[in-house]
């Protein structure tokens, strides 16, 4: 029998970005919150000595071990899935802060087009523009409705940036000025401007100056130390739940984090969640945590797996397209772009921040005409300086051997003589791309693992080709002597590089086609909220967390209203349902 704990107002599953935001907002509003976190405690004291490529970049020291569980992957419905076994292929957060302790902190917003993608695409190009199996749908919210919450996330995280000229007007400027520009960024800026595009410095949560956020948490100025993306920041200069929302929640005295607490089931009676069951990962002892409100904040995979294991919501069927849990899964890890080699110019490639660069968004969304193009949406192009580390950065012009004398010579020569154009692209959902439970592989407790069925689509391949063409043009114009393209891989192999997955418990305007409403509240269970990119009906061009954060801030308003008003659905189902 599980040991029963004292009832609280809110229990969150996981204490990363979304869990931290929920804890901060709900405790500030006077409610008690318990955060159950499968991983260890983390504080800034654990962040010293992180300038270590082996320990952090390659071995993923502060990331989730696959010892107890993992994911299985297949490309099509007909195949058996196999597990991702090697930890280095699954870079997913654990412990206080979750992925937010070792993120790159690139923080764009999504576009108005993203939230109304189906309506706007049909409006402009007609129904036939959308391929038969592409399951895009509107998000049940507009950009304008979400804008104040983007602003709130950006202020909490001290985002440093300048407006993207292609975005609608902002209600407020970024809270901090943009990061400094390195030589490569200046070159990109000049060339793209000349080509008629609209360059701007990438907005980032690695803050450009000392900053105190509205909750009173202080971030220090970024040192451009480059051990950023897979590393926690030694200086307290990167927005991270551990230095922002978690201390905000803790200082209310109403927030308790329980570490080594892995949630296995959401408990419910009829249509009401009553709490969760979790295990102490060290002893296997089982506990029940009762709560008025259960909030899943455990990242896409755990969010969806917990719904499936708890048998909440209609399971998605990839053959009929009916059901919602598991639907519209997307993977956003494929990076297009080019690398340019400069015979006679050296760059300080060792210096950077997690998301250091200059970008253009002229080929994203519907900002360019798709009439004669056989894909929808697009990609962002950025000159990105990642802070090249010596083991992972051995770039050589194509045709060079990958080891031996010539390799050594060229890899040494070009280490500081190359620049990269990097493109993240929007990923559209398809009927047969989804998440469910694996029939074979289990975790340490005997529960089935989550199974990913996904592959690259023609839409992905066509954006890749289109964007690489633009990248080549820009890099050549920047003066590179040799320009090599990132190849398009044949199939998806299940490399989860930086927590860029979406879908599985998507939001929308009605329960036929979505799992949660625009407050991330389950249609089927009023006191269960599911926060994270699991709510994304498709993946926009850029990184997810700004949009995840904005949606979660908005969801907390819904949670507070729910607790104060004594329950109920926060959103009325749209009568004119947009059915697929």
């Amino acid at each position, binding site marked *: 029998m599980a040991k029963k704990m004292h009832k609280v107002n809110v229990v969150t599953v996981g204490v990363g970005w979304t869990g931290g935001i929920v804890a901060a907002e709900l405790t500030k509003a006077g409610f008690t919150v318990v955060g159950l976190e499968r991983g260890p405690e983390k504080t800034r004291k654990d962040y010293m000595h992180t300038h270590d490529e082996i320990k952090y970049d390659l071995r993923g020291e502060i990331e989730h071990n696959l010892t107890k569980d*993992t994911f299985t992957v297949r490309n099509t419905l007909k195949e058996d899935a196999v597990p991702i076994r090697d930890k280095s292929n699954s870079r997913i957060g654990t412990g206080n802060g979750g992925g937010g302790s070792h993120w790159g902190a690139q923080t764009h917003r999504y576009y108005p087009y993203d939230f109304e993608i189906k309506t706007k695409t049909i409006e402009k190009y007609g129904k036939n523009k959308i391929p038969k199996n592409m399951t895009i749908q509107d998000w049940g919210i507009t950009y304008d409705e979400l804008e104040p919450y983007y602003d709130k996330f950006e202020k909490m995280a001290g985002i440093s940036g300048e407006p993207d000229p292609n975005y609608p007007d902002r209600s407020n400027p970024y809270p901090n000025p943009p990061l400094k520009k390195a030589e490569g960024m200046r070159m990109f800026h000049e060339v793209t401007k000349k080509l008629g595009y609209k360059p701007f410095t990438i907005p980032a949560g690695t803050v450009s100056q000392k900053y105190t956020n509205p909750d009173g948490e202080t971030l220090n100025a970024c040192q451009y130390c480059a051990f950023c993306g897979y590393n926690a920041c030694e200086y307290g200069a990167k927005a991270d739940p551990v230095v922002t929302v978690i201390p905000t929640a803790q200082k209310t005295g109403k927030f308790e984090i329980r570490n080594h607490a892995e949630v296995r089931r959401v408990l419910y009676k009829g249509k009401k969640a009553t709490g969760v069951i979790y295990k102490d990962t060290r002893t296997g002892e089982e506990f029940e945590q009762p709560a008025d409100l259960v909030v899943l904040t455990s990242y896409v995979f755990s969010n969806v797996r917990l719904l499936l294991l708890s048998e909440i919501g209609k399971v998605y069927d990839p053959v009929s397209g009916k059901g919602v849990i598991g639907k519209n899964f997307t993977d956003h890890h494929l990076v297009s772009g080019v690398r340019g080699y400069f015979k006679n110019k050296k760059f*300080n490639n060792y210096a950077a921040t997690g998301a250091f660069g200059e970008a253009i968004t002229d080929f994203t969304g519907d900002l360019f005409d798709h009439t004669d193009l056989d894909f929808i949406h697009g990609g962002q192009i950025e000159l990105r300086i990642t802070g090249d580390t010596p083991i992972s950065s051995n770039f050589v012009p194509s045709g060079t051997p990958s080891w031996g004398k010539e390799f050594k010579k060229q890899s040494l020569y070009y280490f500081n003589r190359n620049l990269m154009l990097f493109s993240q692209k929007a990923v559209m959902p398809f009927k047969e791309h989804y998440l469910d439970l694996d029939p074979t592989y289990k975790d340490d407790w005997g529960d089935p693992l989550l199974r990913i069925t996904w592959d690259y689509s023609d839409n992905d391949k066509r954006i890749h080709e289109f964007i690489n063409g633009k990248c080549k043009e820009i890099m050549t114009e920047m003066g590179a002597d040799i320009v090599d393209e990132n190849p398009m891989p044949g199939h998806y192999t299940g490399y989860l590089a930086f927590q860029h997955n979406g879908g599985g418990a998507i939001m929308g305007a009605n329960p036929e086609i979505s799992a949660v409403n625009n407050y991330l509240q389950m249609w089927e269970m009023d006191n269960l909220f599911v926060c994270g990119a699991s709510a994304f009906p498709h993946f926009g061009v850029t990184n997810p967390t700004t949009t995840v954060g904005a949606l979660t801030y908005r969801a907390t308003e819904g949670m507070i209203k729910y607790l104060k008003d004594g329950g109920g659905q926060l959103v009325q189902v749209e009568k004119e349902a947009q059915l697929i």
Partner: protein
Amino acid sequence: MSDEEKKESDKVDQSRRNFIKNSGLTIGGLVLGGVAGGLIGSNSATTKSQTTTKPVKSHETKEFTEAMQFFSRKEDFDTLAAATECIFPEDENGPGAIALRAPYYIDKQLASPWGRNVNDYRKRPFKDGQTPLNRGEIFLQGIRKLDEEGEKKFQKSFRELEEAEQIEILQDFESGKVKLEYVTSAEFFAMLRQSTLEGVYCDPLYGGNKNMDGWKMKEYPGAQMSYANVIESKEFVKIEPMSLSDHF
């Protein structure tokens, strides 16, 4: 944050600030000290690199950490060393894998949790070519196969062959031509190549990248605390490398 935690975090910030000051840099990005040279712990002495397949001990100090943790047969270690040197040979740019102590690095890593796949998912069944072997087992099998192939093709163990012959055998492994049990030779080769580069360029704390010579060849500054003062520079700024032992 409680007052207690606030104090703690201020202490942490203070210690980082002192560090940056000691390194000749400040938090605000103002340059206090010189960028090139002058940083604490920088070490401009280079070791004379060696071409033999046997790692040579430095003259000045005895390296007590240079012995075998993982391997039990010295011949396996020597064959590994010869293979790493083919992948990253000594040349006019500087030392190769052996002089940089990549074989010792690999030995230590194979003895670590990584070598036993402790953090990986290891539950059966292993299907579709997924290997049930751990990294240590793959290395041992691959290395002994290198010797076997040497005997078969050139009647000598791999470590005794001429460089051109060694390269020929490694190419066979790389292209997956050689048959191994429960793993492909291409997979073994990819691990060997990656581990060699790790041993050449890791922080010296791991037993490779001797004297930070790998970093020096690459003009990589290592574990610096701040680049706030070089980030906007139009020109390349060469900085003497610093290792994690300087952060201690």
